[in-house]
């Protein structure tokens, strides 16, 4: 069976898997961005308890493996009475993991804004929250977008691991089809191509567009 025949026969399953992969990607991205922002800001706090909490979170999630985190959330949390449905556990683990890496990008982005910007915002008597929200974060965002592009690719790849807890994403469907047909080259090849298309022709162009758009807003175009 060649690749095109294979795709014609199995496309509904590959398509539904791709849909789940995209859903996992979007939910994990939303969660990851929220956590990045929160932990990145906390790591810059003057309060050592707040800072310590952020450092602990970041080191734990960056120091262990995503697979371990996924299993822990899915298999261990229920022992504490916190049973999470597998779909939720999937994007929760991926998003929390990416959030730890993103927090460092947020922190770096904020630190990259020149000191003069803080001072000018203080000179027009803005409150600390206003300074951060209106002056620093918009500039930090532009500075950190390029590495976020790479992180989003890592996030997409990370979603493939949710198949390990039987979330029916693209990776999971590919394994299932492989197990019943043994057409390994076709099914895994097709899955590789789909991931590649998602990364190279959707995620990356979107991030590039966002970079250009934000740069234009900054008047840097």
């Amino acid at each position, binding site marked *: 069976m060649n690749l095109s025949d294979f795709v014609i026969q199995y496309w509904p399953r590959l398509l539904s898997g791709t849909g789940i992969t995209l859903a996992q990607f979007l939910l994990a991205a939303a969660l990851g961005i929220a956590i990045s922002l929160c932990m990145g800001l906390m790591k810059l706090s003057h309060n050592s308890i707040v800072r310590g909490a952020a450092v602990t979170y970041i080191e734990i999630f960056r120091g262990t493996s995503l697979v371990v985190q996924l299993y822990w959330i899915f298999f261990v949390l229920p022992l504490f009475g916190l049973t999470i449905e597998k779909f939720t556990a999937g994007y929760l683990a991926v998003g929390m993991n990416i959030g730890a890496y993103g927090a460092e990008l947020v922190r770096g982005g904020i630190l990259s804004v020149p000191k003069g910007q803080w*001072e*000018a915002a203080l*000179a*027009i008597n803005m409150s600390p929250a206003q300074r951060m929200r209106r002056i620093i974060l918009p500039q930090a965002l532009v500075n950190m977008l390029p590495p976020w592009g790479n992180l989003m690719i890592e996030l997409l790849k990370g979603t493939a691991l949710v198949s390990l807890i039987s979330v029916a994403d693209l990776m999971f469907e590919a394994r299932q089809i492989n197990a019943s047909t043994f057409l390994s080259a076709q099914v895994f090849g097709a899955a590789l191509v789909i991931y590649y298309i998602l990364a190279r022709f959707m995620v990356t162009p979107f991030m590039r567009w966002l970079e250009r758009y934000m740069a234009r807003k900054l008047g840097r175009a």
Partner: protein
Amino acid sequence: MHDVSAFPLEISGTPTPMVSFRKVTKSYGTLTVLDELDLDIAAGEMVSIIGPSGSGKTTVLRMLMTLEQINGGVIYVDGQPLTHMPKNGTLVPASQKHLRKRRADIGMCFQHFNLFPHMTALENCMEGPVQVLGLSKKEARERSEELLEMVGMIGKKDQHPSRLSGGQQQRVAIARALAMRPKVMLFDEVTSALDPEVIGEVTNVIRKLVSEHNLTMLMVTHQMGFARDISDRVCFFYGGKIEEQGPPAELFGNPKKERTQQFLSAVKEAV
């Protein structure tokens, strides 16, 4: 913290000085940048600070803008303490809340302009009035456009800073500071980062401010001619202290102290 119990809760006098440094000390580790500085500036007065680099000139402005904390003494603005606040009949270090309230009297322009790059010239000027003073967008726009007109930048009001020359950015920065209607304006080497041919457009704006407005101004500058032209008083800083001060004609024409003479002749040679 140092003892401030000997300092008055507020200062009066006729007229009350707009700015008053009382025995203000600033040090970084073991390096003393300012040593028990006493300096009064009257309302409406234009004071220039000159001196060699490292003499503490810029630090004076940065402390007044509350960008730096002081290590000793008290700074008063318009009779009220700035760096401290009264509590139970004595002065205690100012809280963030107190600083925010008192800071409203002070505006500052920086050597490197520090315009917000993600906002247009007009948005830069409107940011403070809208976000901090709570003006309506319409009021803030009117106020900002008027000021941009005054600094000659109304034609570029919708440009981002990256599209403006250094001189143009600095003029916008002056308008941005003025939009907050401060009582005291601080100019920190505002022409030092500019190309020589555009320095005039910024100094002309400051001249206009001096002649048309009754603002209290404190300026750190390396341009002796400009300081001489527009100042009511010039202070020569040396080693964290005011070595000599007086009306510009006197200080530049007939300096009394040896260090002042040395500095002025060195500057003259450099030109």
